[in-house]
């Protein structure tokens, strides 16, 4: 609609090079709806959160409407409280380990796609696509069913191995196996994206170069290390980065595993911890401070990616 009104002005100023008028109001009118919705849906909550993170905003504040200003007290608590530190440490460890496994596994699948014949590659690609397209919540219900301690297939199959006694073993009972299961599920969901991205990168490595390297007597590992890795470095970096960011936000997965198992504090990662602080405990001051912390980590990790996208925009 806005383009209609403004079009005569454009034609008058510079018909040959449209994208350069500075006086025109058109582009500002065009981005207005997006800006408004972003300000409402993201901007306002973000500012509220920054303000609240400097307040003692507990359950009582909700009724009295009074939330005293406490400066950086919430952040001091965040960095000194052993319980929160345990959650932060667990989240970062989970995120880094899961992302690393995902990228390595995805890389192996990408190499496998390249090494396999047409049929093998196609079957692998179709199956990975199916896994990739599963909605998170549906994937979680299936995995919880697979790991069910009464009739789950995983226990059944492990039990068939000689010397392994897994009958009625409850995976979600202890934090160690709980997070192992969470990690397996997240890796399963994320590997397809990594595999396809890295495979797309691999197809850019020319066969001639590989053959030349082979003739020069290099072995498989050397070819991966000295030819493939340097050539797919850019895409590898971005995939790793995205994976780190995505594995930090695993709220749905952890929440559903807690639904099926135990919701005790030792099973919390940052997402579920914030959720409990906010909705369960009503401690919005602390919940805001932890949320800001999560946002800060995310921005720090994603900075390189955002910069590379900005460069892409400038071209």
């Amino acid at each position, binding site marked *: 609609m*806005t*383009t209609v009104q403004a*079009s005569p002005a454009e034609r008058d100023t510079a018909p040959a090079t*449209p994208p350069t*008028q*500075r006086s*025109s109001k*058109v*582009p500002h009118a*065009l981005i207005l709806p*997006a800006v408004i919705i972003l300000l*409402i849906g*993201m901007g306002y*909550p*973000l500012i*509220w959160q920054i303000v609240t993170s400097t307040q003692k905003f507990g359950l009582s504040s909700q009724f009295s409407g009074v939330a005293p200003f406490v400066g950086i007290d919430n952040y001091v608590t965040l960095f000194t409280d052993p319980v929160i530190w345990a959650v932060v440490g667990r989240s970062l460890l989970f995120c880094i380990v899961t992302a690393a496994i995902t990228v390595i596994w995805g890389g192996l699948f990408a190499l*496998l*796609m390249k*090494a*396999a014949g047409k*049929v093998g590659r196609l*079957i*692998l690609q179709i*199956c990975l696509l199916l896994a990739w*397209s*599963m909605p*998170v919540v*549906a*994937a979680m*219900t*299936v995995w919880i069913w*697979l790991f069910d301690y009464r*009739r789950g297939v995983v226990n*059944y199959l492990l039990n068939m191995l000689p010397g392994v006694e897994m009958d009625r073993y*409850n995976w979600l009972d202890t934090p160690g196996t709980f997070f192992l299961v969470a990690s397996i599920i997240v890796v399963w969901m994320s*590997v397809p994206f990594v595999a396809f991205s890295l495979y*797309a990168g691999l*197809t*850019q490595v*020319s066969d001639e170069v590989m053959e030349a390297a082979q003739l020069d007597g290099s072995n498989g590992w050397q070819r991966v290390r000295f030819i493939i890795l340097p050539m797919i470095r850019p895409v590898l970096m*971005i995939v790793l980065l995205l994976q780190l960011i995505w594995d930090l*936000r695993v*709220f749905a997965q952890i*929440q*559903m595993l807690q*639904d*099926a*198992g135990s919701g005790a504090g030792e099973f919390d990662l940052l997402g579920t911890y*914030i*959720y409990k602080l906010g909705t369960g405990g009503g401690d919005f001051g602390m*919940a*805001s401070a932890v*949320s800001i912390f999560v*946002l800060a980590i995310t*921005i720090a990790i*994603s900075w390189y990616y*955002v910069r*590379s*996208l*900005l460069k892409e925009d400038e071209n």
Partner: protein
Amino acid sequence: MATLAPTTQAPARRPRDPRRIRRILWSAVAIIAALIWVFPVYWMVSSSLLPNRTLMSFIPTFFPGAETTFANYRNVVADGSFFSALGMSVSITLIVVVCCLIFAFLAAIAISRYKFRGRKSFVLAVLLVQMLPAEGLFIAQYKMISSVGLLNSIIGVSVIYIAAVVPFTIWMLRGFVAGIPAELEEAAMVDGLSRPQAFMRITFPLLAPGLVASGVFAFLQAWNEFTVALVILQSNSSQTLPLWLRGFIQNSASREIDWGQVMASSTLVAVPVIIFFLIVQGRMTSGLVGGAVKG
């Protein structure tokens, strides 16, 4: 877009024998890996087709065969809560897709066809917002929505969803708009069309694939969203499909669950997603890592 296709296909090169054997071996490994990876999806569908008494047995049935039944699906559909959740999900998804497409389309035109003051900050804001996790803002969004009395309403959750999805949609559409040379429009204008006419007749049809891809992306986001929905849609009557599905799992440790029905429900939620996802998958990868792949 075509980056997924192998660039060099060895033309008529007859493979020497050891190479061929190696290729077949790797293919076998690939197929085994594929079957392991797809097993959970298979297990969802297969369990959904089995009667409850078979699922209650301690020995799993791997192939439904003669026991195949659609009773689980009938039970799911007979329960009114499914259609209530479906209605919520469809309404929210529709609103999000339509609004995202309109807003993102306008903004994409602005940033790819115009230079203007504030352009760089706007692009930076769009890129940063798309990285922000829902976990980092959902408590604040919950407070905001509840303070204006929109908890459990379609509007409240839609506003948050649109704000969360529109950045990536803008970014995706920007690529499509930038791919259509402005010269095409100008040529049409030289031929006597006005700018809006030129836009509607030349650029818009070329943008159709981009709009479809971005629309599907918005659909997937809104349809699958769980985190924000959990805090904003708290009453049972306003549940979306993901929340409804979660309801089956809650407290499953302490009670017996009708897994056949849960798997049938999961399948019903997943099928539209799988179909739409397959339509746009090529663009998903190239949209996220496109620049890096082309080097």
